[in-house]
């Protein structure tokens, strides 16, 4: 499963990337997670992702992200605020599962 996270500059989402990886390792799931800033998002989509996860603080730009992701048929979801922290891996993975299943 390949998850692409996007926030404003790619800084805070890199923290959440680690949280997701940790949770995945704990529950034995194989995931590839990467974080990018808004500016690199459209470029990165080319590399094939299963889902794009938008950080809650840039949720006002979700239409913009959706437009870019539609070209590659990548579904876009906003990360629930309570999952967007170093201990929120489980919340995010549950959300992803709900969307992709």
């Amino acid at each position, binding site marked *: 499963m390949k998850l692409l996270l996007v926030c*404003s500059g790619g800084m805070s989402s890199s923290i959440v990337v680690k949280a997701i990886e940790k949770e995945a390792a704990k529950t034995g799931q194989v995931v590839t997670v990467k974080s990018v800033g808004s500016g690199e998002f459209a470029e990165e989509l080319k590399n094939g992702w299963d889902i794009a996860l938008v950080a809650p603080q840039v949720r006002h730009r979700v239409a913009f992200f959706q437009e870019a992701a539609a070209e590659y048929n990548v579904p876009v979801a906003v990360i629930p605020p309570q999952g967007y922290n170093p201990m929120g891996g489980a919340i995010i993975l549950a959300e992803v599962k709900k969307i992709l299943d």
Partner: protein
Amino acid sequence: MHKFFALLDKYLIPTMTKLSEQRHLRAVRDGIISTIPLIIVGSFFMILAFPPFPALAAAIKPYTGQILIPFRLTMGLMALYACHSIGYHLAKSYKLDGVSGGILAMAAFLLTSVPVTYPDKGMALLMENLGGGSMFVAIIMAIFAVEVLRFAKTRKLTIKMPDGVPESVAKSFEALIPAAVIIPAVWLVRDFVGFDIHHFVLELFQPLVLAGNTLAGILVPIVIITLLWATGIHGDSVVGSVARPVWLVLLDQNIAAAAAGQPIPNIAPEPFFQWFVWIGGSGASLGLVLLMLFSKAPYLKSMSRVTLLPGICNINEPVIFGVPIMLNPLLFLPFLLSPVAIAILTYFVMDIGLVNKPYILVPWTLPAPIGAYLATGGDWRAIVLVFVNIIIAAALYYPFLKAYERKLSREGMAGELEEELK
């Protein structure tokens, strides 16, 4: 308080986000952000040229001119770089060729300057017209050039190449007619009518730049940024797209004064906010995280351990969404009051000259005391001020954090949240 958040959600958020998502402002934001690596590395040479240690500074003095060359050709030409990048991003947003947008923007911008002839050296462009002070000219010319490009494209005013011509060649011809409009247009206005675009734009935006450097000009963006973050929206990114050109002009004036050995004029370029107000991130939340380390609520204590390191690097989304501060009526007040209080203090401390005004841009993920020290050109008093500000912020958070702890334990929520996270 919930009504208040609902009001923000209904009025402030849609207005501000619509503004920041406006196509041209977005291009300005993305364009300027692309130049930040050059500004950071370039202004680093300012520190090298004027090291904060007197003995070293004296030893380096004979070489100052050479050391400043990378600074002058990066930061000193900031508007030129930004112009290209803004043109690129704006063209991209219209699904036009980005590179064509970038070079047309640059040509339009360069044509607003008149070369000067030196008898024995040849012709020269004055660098002062290409630096941060000309940022607004760069923005206007980039928008003008790309709008002409778009007009030509939508009206099909392009030269069509036959099939089989490589795409890159065909694309460059698409910019031919727009270039034939843009270049003569700017040339006529500047060199024949003699209309000084730089002077005009400078006068036009002067009030905005002056206002940006007042106490009100500091507090307005702080309050709006904080209100946006209180509802979980990236306030800096939203407000920055509007305010950053002004901050850059203020920074440019400061750094030019520093390079010339004159007193620093402005308090309020972006490093002011970054190092003295947003300590630990927006809302000066490092003070809160430090208090949480000693919290009796297990949830807040474990949250503080994982948010401390990002907080020292000024990344506080984990705090805002984890504690949470977002939509939290108990923590909203100190989240707003702390940055306002320390901004007012810092403003007056710098105004009376107790701490140097900031003039160097350093990466925003540095710990605040280091960032403040470097941004002020190596003023140790800036470090003291940062620690005072952290203490003030923590003191303002303290009673509200206690109230939040009581609420958590009363509702047994602490344990519940803890469980959820395990």
